[in-house]
């Protein structure tokens, strides 16, 4: 410890200690005057200084200064190198920024460490939302939680706007617990029980009210109910959601807006509910809270045996991370694994490939530069530089380059991230400025890159072995493999996109619109819902242009999804479930392949998709077979053609249709098929649906728009991966041009000699290109293999295209071969123009 302290003291007072050392030695020399030689003072001083252990800093700064000078001497090389690194590091930084944002970086709320999100789980069911009465029970009885928050996203209409607003009903402690204050006015207050009030989001205030500061205190109408605006939230207030809500209102007021709502009393079926967050009481762990909630749930089950599941537990997740607040799912059976990590692995692999290609390229460049620096290195060796010292110096240059590349990559990554933010509807509060994690990542990956591209060339150069072409060939092979993978994956995505745009998803979407009456939110009873629905059906049938109307619990391509994990006939299977009426197959144009559809309501009958029949009863007639859903037995009465209603990208998705049960009627959606373009009917249908019950504000949407949204994801990824593949291809081509040009310039004499002896141009070309063919072929083989392995992760996102789709592979390899041939022949032509006379006369 003391030693370290003394060492640091020396480092800080280096100049003074150096001066003292000089003094001391001078004194010694004076004393020893005539008594023996003292030797070279400078050298002795350096040796003495060595004892302090800081010489490496001197050497490092020396090396850095030299490297800086060297890089400044060849600005072209430096620029090319930094640019290449910036691309390689930049895409990695951008990808990491997203990962950081979703997984590592807490939301900008107060004390994110103690905020938890709770979900429901039991051996048979899972749901991410919790019934409100259950949350209220926990709030009342929990000792391990200091505060319990609930969030219920809803859609309400505001006077004068067709599009519904996103309203988050939150417990009044929401703003206080998240440490948020209002930019204007005030936020919801848990202590002052007041009338209906809302807090506007910054974006909505700008968009709808033109940022008028007098908005606070104004009265607006939501679902025709008057409500006072009490404040505007800050722009960077995240709340606990990835959507950008337009406004927040107290959950106590929810029944005021949604007349008849049973939010406070009802335990919804099918895992419905609201999002539950909580703050840990200081001194308690998340495990303690989970244990307590489990026993509280068991207590509540005694009063509410239908509402609480058997053996219900409430696992928690850190609540202040984007990853844990997105999505809402429920179902039975086992929870399917986290889908995030395979995607992260794939994206990570792709962006690392780009960096790999850039590094391979830079490595070749460094080797080529080594030829130009032969003389310099020879001089340094002859004046006594050891190999280690040389390697250290050369590697310092690489490190400096990498550092510059990291800085440029950070900048580029920021720009890419900004662009991606615009296109991927990320929340407005998201801060794109790199935080310390991103900066550390950029530096670390720069260092890794320096090792990758700088270390081997430095070793080769120091050993004066850089003229050997083995390493060059290896680098070319690696670049070929890397860019080949990227091109193939891009090709697969383009094929998938093409399929998505042109092929039929198995159901009609162009001329269908959906109506979400939201009856359940208004506390409709099944009987009342039946009345509303048949009235609406009658009115809709009266509209010219309406072909058919049907009911479904889930809108195709909609936000809600229910999956069921079951094992039937020994086959474990994930089934997307939907409850529909008998008009559904006609409305959605899904043909029945076998059997019939439902005869009446409430029957224990089921229609399954062809893909499910094939997976569960391969080679058998599925009609009449029994499907046990866990809640009862259903007999299969029909097989429908595959319609990818939920997972449009996944051709093998299984689908099961139950017939609508009476108790499901309040949560029904209606689907309307039109004979012409459906756009014009939207406002008309909305006003009819509203007129049947004025307290209901049904939302009408086009299936076409959901379809477009779904395809857009694939579109963006195809464009992004395509761009990466193009950059990689370009880099690899640069590398090949460099390699061929280098070998031509090195073998000018040999070429001249061969020409003089009568070699034909063909022979000369094959001489120059021969060393290229092996690494390119090897790289292609490795690349195709890697791509086949990696793209497995994608196989469910390809709209039925196989991840081994031959067209994508051939196209990618073809493009690649063309580019490589072009890149190789361009410099190889120079070999043909060698003048034998001149070449042989060279020294």
């Amino acid at each position, binding site marked *: 410890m*003391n*030693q370290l302290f*003394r*060492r640091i003291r*020396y480092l800080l007072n280096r100049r003074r200690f150096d001066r*003292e*050392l000089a*003094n*001391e*030695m001078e*004194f*010694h020399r*004076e*004393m*020893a005057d005539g008594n*023996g030689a*003292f*030797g070279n003072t400078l*050298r*002795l001083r350096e*040796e*003495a*200084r*060595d*004892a*302090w*252990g800081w010489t490496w800093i001197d050497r490092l700064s020396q090396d850095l200064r030299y490297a800086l000078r060297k890089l400044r001497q060849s600005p072209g090389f430096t620029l090319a190198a930094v640019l290449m690194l910036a691309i390689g590091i930049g895409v990695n930084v951008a990808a990491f920024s997203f990962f950081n944002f979703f997984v590592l970086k807490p939301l900008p709320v107060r004390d994110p460490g103690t905020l938890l999100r709770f979900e429901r789980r039991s051996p048979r069911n899972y749901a991410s939302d919790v019934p409100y009465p259950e949350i209220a029970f926990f709030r009342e009885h929990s000792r391990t939680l200091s505060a319990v928050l609930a969030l219920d996203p809803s859609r309400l209409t505001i006077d004068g706007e067709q599009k519904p607003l996103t309203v988050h009903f939150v417990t009044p402690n929401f703003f206080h617990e998240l440490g948020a204050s209002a930019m204007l006015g005030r936020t919801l207050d848990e202590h002052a029980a007041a009338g209906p009030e809302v807090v506007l989001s910054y974006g909505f205030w700008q968009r709808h009210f033109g940022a008028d500061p007098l908005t606070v205190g104004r009265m607006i109408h939501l679902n025709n109910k008057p409500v006072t605006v009490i404040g505007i939230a800050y722009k960077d207030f995240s709340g606990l959601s990835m959507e950008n809500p337009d406004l927040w209102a107290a959950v106590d007021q929810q029944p005021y807006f949604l007349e008849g709502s049973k939010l406070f009393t009802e335990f919804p079926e099918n895992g419905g509910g609201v999002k539950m967050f909580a703050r840990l009481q200081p001194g308690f762990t998340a495990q303690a809270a989970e244990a307590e909630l489990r026993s509280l749930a068991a207590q509540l089950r005694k009063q509410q045996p239908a509402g609480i599941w058997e053996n219900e537990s409430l696992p928690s997740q850190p609540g202040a991370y984007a990853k844990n607040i997105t999505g809402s799912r429920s179902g039975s059976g086992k929870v399917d694994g986290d889908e995030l990590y395979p995607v992260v692995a794939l994206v990570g692999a792709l962006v690392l490939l780009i960096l790999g290609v850039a590094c391979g390229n830079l490595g070749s460049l460094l080797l080529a530069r080594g030829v130009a620096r032969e003389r310099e290195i020879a001089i340094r060796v002859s004046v006594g530089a050891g190999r280690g010292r040389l390697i250290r110096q050369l590697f310092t240059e690489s490190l400096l380059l990498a550092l510059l590349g990291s800085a440029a990559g950070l900048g580029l990554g920021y720009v890419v991230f900004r662009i991606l933010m615009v296109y991927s509807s990320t929340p407005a509060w998201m801060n794109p400025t790199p935080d310390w994690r991103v900066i550390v990542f950029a530096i670390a990956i720069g260092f890794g890159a320096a090792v990758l591209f700088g270390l081997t060339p430095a070793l080769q150069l120091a050993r004066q072995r850089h003229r050997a072409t083995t390493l060059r060939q290896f680098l070319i092979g690696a670049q070929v493999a890397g860019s080949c993978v990227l091109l193939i994956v891009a090709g697969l995505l383009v094929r998938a996109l093409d399929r998505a745009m042109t092929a039929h998803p198995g159901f009609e979407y162009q001329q269908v619109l959906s109506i979400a009456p939201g009856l359940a939110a208004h506390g409709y009873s099944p009987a009342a819902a039946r009345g509303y629905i048949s009235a609406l059906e009658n009115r809709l049938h009266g509209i010219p242009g309406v072909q058919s109307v049907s009911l479904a619990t889930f809108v195709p391509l909609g936000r809600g999804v229910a999956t069921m994990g079951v094992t039937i006939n020994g086959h474990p299977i994930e089934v997307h479930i939907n409850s529909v009426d008998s008009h559904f197959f006609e409305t959605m144009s899904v043909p029945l392949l076998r059997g019939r559809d439902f005869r009446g309501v409430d029957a224990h009958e089921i229609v399954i998709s062809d893909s499910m029949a094939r997976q569960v009863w391969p080679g058998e007639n599925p009609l009449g077979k029994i499907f046990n859903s866990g809640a009862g037995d259903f007999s299969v009465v029909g097989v429908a053609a595959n319609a990818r209603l939920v997972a449009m990208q996944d051709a093998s998705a299984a689908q099961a249709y139950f017939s609508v049960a009476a108790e499901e009627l309040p949560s029904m959606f209606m689907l309307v098929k039109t004979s012409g373009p459906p756009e014009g009917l939207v406002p008309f249908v909305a006003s009819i649906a509203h007129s049947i019950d004025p307290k209901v504000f049904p939302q009408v949407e086009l299936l076409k728009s959901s379809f477009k949204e779904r395809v857009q994801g694939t579109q963006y990824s195809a464009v992004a991966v395509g761009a990466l593949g193009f950059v990689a291809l370009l880099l690899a081509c640069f590398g090949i041009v460099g390699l061929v040009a280098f070998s031509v310039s090195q073998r000018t004499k040999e070429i001249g000699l061969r020409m003089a002896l009568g070699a034909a141009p063909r022979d000369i070309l094959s001489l120059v290109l021969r060393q290229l063919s092996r690494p390119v072929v090897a790289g292609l083989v490795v690349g195709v293999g890697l791509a086949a392995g990696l793209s497995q992760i994608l196989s469910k996102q390809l709209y039925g295209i196989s991840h081994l789709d031959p067209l994508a592979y051939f196209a990618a390899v073809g493009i690649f071969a063309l580019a490589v041939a072009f890149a190789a022949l361009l410099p190889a032509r120079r070999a043909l123009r060698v003048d034998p006379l001149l070449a042989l006369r060279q020294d």
Partner: protein
Amino acid sequence: MAKSATPALLQGTLDLLILHALQRGEMHGYAIAQCIHLLSDEALRVEEGSLYPALYRLELDGAIKARWGLSENNRKAKYYDITARGKKLMTQQQETWSRLSVAVDRVLAR
């Protein structure tokens, strides 16, 4: 560097000799070298190139401490003195050394 008349010092023994010399009281670098030279009946000459690195190592280690003072001829000089830790270190090294030299003698005697 070592001339044949003055045997090269065994690795590590210089530290011991310096510490031993400093037991006589505080002295500057040149005096330490002289002291060792004289005490060895002029058999050992401490090379200046090894003396100062050794002194700095010992100082870093906390075995000796240094201060600036005036020399006998009124010149600024750096004086070294042994610390408690240095004394302990010296006893240890002395033991090691005697064990080593006895062992070497024994080997050479056969």
